[in-house]
């Protein structure tokens, strides 16, 4: 477009130079994670500090894993994420389908309602949620966490699905109806297979969100056997007696890297889902 009108090699160099400070700041936490997670215990609190450890202490990962039963936290996180994603899709697909295919009176009101649910942060409702689940006698379990997280992620998923559903031509469904398929059959056998790419992208975004969730879990979960990864790391970093930063950084790396890779692959789908359908 022409902010810089020079030749491409010079422009490339200039662009990279201008972005370099920010990129360095973005990479810095990863450097800290790696540098700390791979050093022996007695090289943590040293002054002056250094980046490279005397040897690669890979045993930090296994030590950390067994000392805090990290596998349980991984399983807890996977459980909450899977349950939330399933619930979001189960409830979100019909909603998005209705929004894209039907014209009903309170369509805009429903969309505004969804938008509000997206804007309300869990922290504002934390006390109300806590009291609700105490009242229901359903506290300190992962199931309520999955339900609440699903509800807070529903709006984003519905809008993302809605945007994609609207691009699927109606003719295909209409053809199925002419051939005698019922609405339900055509939805399940014709429409959803066509929407599969959108379904998987939505599922993966929800997965990343749930995987990283902190406030709801912090509020509704008490005992450490139910800790998810962010809660486990938070607990490790809140230990008043000893902060084993080499273990904490190993834990952060294990929890972060897979999701980072997944997210990097997903980011190209982001723009549309974020704004395009927020209110229509």
């Amino acid at each position, binding site marked *: 477009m022409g902010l810089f009108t020079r030749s491409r090699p010079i422009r490339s160099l200039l662009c990279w130079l201008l972005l370099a400070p920010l990129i360095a700041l973005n990479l810095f936490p990863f450097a*800290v994670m790696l540098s700390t997670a791979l050093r022996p215990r007695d090289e943590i609190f040293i002054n002056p500090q250094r980046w490279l450890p005397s040897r690669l202490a890979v045993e930090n990962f296994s030590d950390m894993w067994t000392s805090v039963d990290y596998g349980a936290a991984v399983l807890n996180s996977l459980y909450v994420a899977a349950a939330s994603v399933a619930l979001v899709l189960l409830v979100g697909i*019909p*909603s998005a389908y209705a929004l894209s295919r039907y014209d009903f009176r309170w369509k805009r009101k429903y969309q505004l309602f969804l938008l509000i*649910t997206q804007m309300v942060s869990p922290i504002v409702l934390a006390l109300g949620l806590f009291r609700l689940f105490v009242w229901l006698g359903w506290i300190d379990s992962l199931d309520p966490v999955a*339900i*609440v997280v699903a509800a807070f992620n529903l709006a984003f998923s519905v809008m993302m699905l809605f945007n994609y559903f*609207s691009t699927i031509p109606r003719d295909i469904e209409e053809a199925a109806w002419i051939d005698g398929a019922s609405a339900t059959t055509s939805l399940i056998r014709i429409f959803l297979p066509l929407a599969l790419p959108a379904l998987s992208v939505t599922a993966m975004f929800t997965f990343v969100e749930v995987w990283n969730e902190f406030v709801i879990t912090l509020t509704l979960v008490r005992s450490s056997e139910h800790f998810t990864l962010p809660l486990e790391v938070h607990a490790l970093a809140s230990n008043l007696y000893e902060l084993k930063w080499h273990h904490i950084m190993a834990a952060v790396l294990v929890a972060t890297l897979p999701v980072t890779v997944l997210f990097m692959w997903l*980011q190209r789908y*982001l723009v549309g889902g974020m704004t395009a359908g927020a209110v229509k």
Partner: protein
Amino acid sequence: MRERVSNPILLYPGGPAKAGEGGLRGIFRMFRVSRAFWLILPGLLLTALVIGLPILILIWTAFHEVSRFGVLLSFNGFANFADVFADPLFYAALLRTIVWTAAVVLGTLLLSLPVALILNEDFAGRGFARLLILLPWSVSLTMTAVVWRWALNGQSGLFNHLLLQLGIIDTPIEWLGTAPLAFTVQIAIAILVSIPFTVTLLLGGLSSIAGDVYEAGAVDGATGWKSFRHITLPLLKPFVNIAIVLNVIYVFNSFPIIWVLTQGGPADGTDILVTYLYKLAFKFGQLGKASVVSLMMFAVLLIFTVVYAALQMRREEA
């Protein structure tokens, strides 16, 4: 969003074909409404229960005296509201929330705009650069904050080490030791993690500006700064507005960075409303006051949301 379909009967399978025989438009309409209703009902129920019920509970709690253990004692009118408004910590947190939100949103925007413009240029390795810019988005805020807490350690932190190496400072700094410095650092980290979202949003806006607008501008002599000032900026404005409102909402609500780095300390000096609220509710057991603060924050968010919805509609009508 309304699509015209030539044969309306085909649009609503199952219902209209049967009910439409006598040309009963009323039944026709009702059926359409109820089918859509059944489809959105699960989503409506889920969100109404998870988001609606807690609000009712908060309203109910806000008007009662509550024991430390959460037992509702007696109706006490606006006593909890009066308690909140008499608490100097509330005003301190409120003021800090305003500073926090304004500084983070403004800082984010000022940095994201040039970054988005650069990423919109055609240069070698652009896709990779974009990945690196979006990197912080993929990491949970809790994890990011934990890493920074260690990196900012005064004696052994790698951030001081890096600054010493680069010759920017010559003695280590205790970043989280005093409230004003800790708060400044938290604002900087919040800006850093807000940039990816904002850049993505602005890139979406930039890509929607068609190339021929610039060509037409170039014919009229608008190139470089002129084309930016008179073409890019006005066309990007709706996206900037949306970025501001969304960031205000997210930053206003942001909890993990401050909670993990300082828990609002030292001496409540970095508390914003969300951390103040969380302490009231889950540390000090002042549930009546906590409900009042929750409701006030909810009201503020509602206003922001309406502003956002209005901006969105204006963008779509334009």
